[in-house]
């Protein structure tokens, strides 16, 4: 029992309330008058939807094509799945029994189209022709007009010619009628796209030992690898669903940087994934269904392993990247990518190594020249106090982290203009950002730094100095 908005009406009632004659839509004041000891709770649509999602997860044991039908419905496309449970009636019974265990009341209906099944469940009708006209979902006006014309059920409508109906009530009503009568079959849109490959193992007796679970996953991975091999593909993503006997579903996903169908490698990644879980897997009363899916696969040709047992470094690197990405997070394993910019910190991008290998197009060093760029760059330039001979001149000494460095050798400035096109109205003088003058500096102990003065003296009154990088 829940309340809604200013008018305070009941949104939903439990069976006991229904037995007392309360129906959804009754004003709270009326309901209280009839049943003084009524217990009322706030309506929480978000929690309802979450529960529905949780139920949908559990229903994926019946079919991968599962769709939410808010506020209270689920649509399952069980085409080709019913034989796993005997027949469709037994599947429905199994589902109803499971829902009952959670204290939920449910109505299950089977239909050749999603619309007919949905309407049958909603109006508790056995046949389509027995459905009331409200099943058309055409709005109060349409329903009232139909009833006034003496058409009370879908059966009455089915035998009428469609064209006058369409002319009077619009095309949507006729389309909906065709769907209810199972003449037109729209597919449901599943919550998750069906996987490319799916292997699953049912258990008559739920299993709960981690070793058993891992052994099962290994077996499933072997099966999936075989299927991938037949298709000449390798998986990029593997998802494992652990269906607990009480309806909860735990999901583990493993991504790989390159397509793979190596079951041993996959098992290592899965073990890493389980180790890295914030809260460990709780088997509860055990898992009665374990499923492995490959939602994303790419072409992977068979490779002839050479006779000489040379370690394949590419494969080893890919395996290492995957392993560390699974354990530490993909963003923590990175590679350098070059970017078109002459602003030093913008010229480089670090991208997750799993996203793809970088191209080697770095500027080549000039023979006889020392490195003109530092090998280390600070994320944020470090402010330093600089003493220069004259305002526009080169630094003589500077203080960084409370230590004074006397400059013994210096080269510069290398002037780097700002990227004025990135600034709003940057084409106007003074809006384009500040020019930087970079100096390569060596102190009298031999440490080499990269300093810059931010702003020219005609751009800003007091340009500040920063230490941006360190040379070898």
């Amino acid at each position, binding site marked *: 029992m829940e309340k809604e908005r200013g008018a305070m009406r009941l949104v939903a009632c439990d069976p006991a309330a229904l037995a007392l004659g309360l129906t959804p839509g009754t004003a709270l004041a009326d309901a209280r008058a009839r049943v003084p000891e009524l217990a009322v709770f706030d309506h929480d649509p978000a929690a309802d939807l979450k529960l529905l999602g949780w139920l949908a997860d559990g229903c994926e044991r019946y079919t991968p094509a599962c769709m939410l039908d808010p506020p209270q419905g689920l649509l399952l496309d069980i085409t080709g799945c019913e034989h796993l449970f005997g027949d469709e009636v037994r599947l429905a019974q199994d589902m109803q029994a499971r829902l009952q265990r959670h204290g939920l009341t449910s109505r299950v209906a089977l239909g050749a189209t999603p619309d007919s099944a949905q309407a049958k469940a909603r109006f508790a009708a056995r046949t389509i022709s027995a459905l009331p006209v409200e099943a058309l979902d055409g709005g109060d006006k349409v329903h009232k007009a139909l009833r006034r014309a003496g058409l009370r059920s879908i059966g009455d409508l089915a035998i009428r010619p469609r064209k006058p109906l369409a002319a009077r009530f619009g095309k949507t009503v006729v389309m909906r009628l065709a769907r209810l009568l199972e003449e037109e079959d729209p597919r449901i849109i599943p919550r998750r796209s069906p996987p490319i490959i799916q292997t699953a193992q049912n258990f008559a007796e739920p299993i709960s030992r981690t070793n058993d679970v891992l052994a099962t996953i290994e077996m499933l991975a072997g099966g999936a690898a075989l299927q991938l091999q037949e298709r000449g593909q390798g998986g990029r993503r593997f998802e494992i669903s652990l269906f607990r006997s009480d309806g909860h579903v735990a999901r583990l996903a493993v991504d790989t940087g390159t397509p793979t169908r190596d079951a041993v490698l996959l098992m290592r990644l899965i073990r890493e994934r389980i180790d890295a879980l914030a809260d460990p897997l709780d088997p509860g009363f055990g898992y009665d269904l374990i499923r492995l899916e490959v939602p994303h696969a790419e072409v992977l040709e068979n490779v002839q392993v050479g006779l000489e047992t040379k*370690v394949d*470094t590419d494969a*080893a*690197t890919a*395996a*290492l*990247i995957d*392993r*560390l990405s699974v354990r*530490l997070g993909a963003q*923590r*394993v*990175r*590679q*350098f990518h070059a970017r078109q910019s002459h602003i*030093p910190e913008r*010229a*480089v991008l*670090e991208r997750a*190594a799993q996203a793809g*290998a*970088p*191209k*080697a197009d*770095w*500027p*080549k*060093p000039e*023979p*006889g*020249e*020392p*490195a*003109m*760029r*530092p*090998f*280390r*760059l*600070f*994320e944020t330039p470090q402010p330093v106090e600089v003493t220069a001979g004259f305002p526009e001149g080169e630094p003589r000494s500077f203080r960084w*982290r409370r*230590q004074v460095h006397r400059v013994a*050798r*210096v*080269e510069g400035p*290398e*002037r780097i203009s700002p990227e004025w096109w990135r600034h709003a109205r940057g084409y106007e003088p003074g809006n384009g950002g500040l020019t930087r003058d970079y100096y*390569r*500096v*060596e102190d*009298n*102990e*031999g*440490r*080499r730094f990269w300093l810059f003065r931010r702003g020219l003296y005609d751009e800003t009154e007091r340009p500040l100095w920063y230490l941006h*990088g*360190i*040379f*070898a």
Partner: protein
Amino acid sequence: MNIRHNPLGTVFPSGQGTWKQYQPDGQSSLLPIGAPNVDTRLRGGIARHGLHEFFGPTKVDSHAAVAFALLLAWRLPESDAGIFWITSDKERQASGRLYPHGLSAMGGDPSKILLVQVADLRDALRAAADGIRSKAAAAVILEAQGNARLIDLTSTRRLALAAAEAGVLALLVRGDAVPMPSAASTRWQVKSAPSVPLPGNAPGFATFDISLLRHRGGTAPFAAKVTWDHATRSFYDAPLSGGLSAIVTGGEADPASRQRA
């Protein structure tokens, strides 16, 4: 670019026929630094399949230790197979990140570097061990700041054994730390050294003061000054400071070519 010397020349006096030139295992597993002065003292170089430690005595010097370790890894002929670089969040915040344009200017290939940034030292050691065992990279470099209790005899021995078994060069860089007992085959202290200035008093090539603190093979500690040459990817003995020629490479002595606006 002329090659200054043949690092193996000091080790193998002469090759009489092809069979004599075949390198015995003991020698091939040595990585020469490139500077004859250092290599003679090391009797050929440092162990290629082992763990080496580099200390930067202060925070500012830790950058030199990092650079020296990285350059040493580039001495490996198969370094194109990749370098596996492990750093921590704290490290990156305090000492900045690797800058690929600078790395490329020192003669390396930044796209062959795999970066791993971990949250703490425990993860770092584990990632290092994984990286070594996977043989994915020719060299594994782990940098750690400060005195860390986790880097002890046990953890370093684990890394050293893995490195020897997998045939990987493992380099441990310790900035701002006091040397503690470890299983590393060599331990070095690295500091930046004044470079030979280029025309116009410009800072020159990367130069380091290195001193061997400890050697498992029994080599006596010594100190040396070496300069990196990015064209040959090799170190050479730095000339003693003083009025020596500023032009270290023949050919491009024209000061005008060094003028950059």
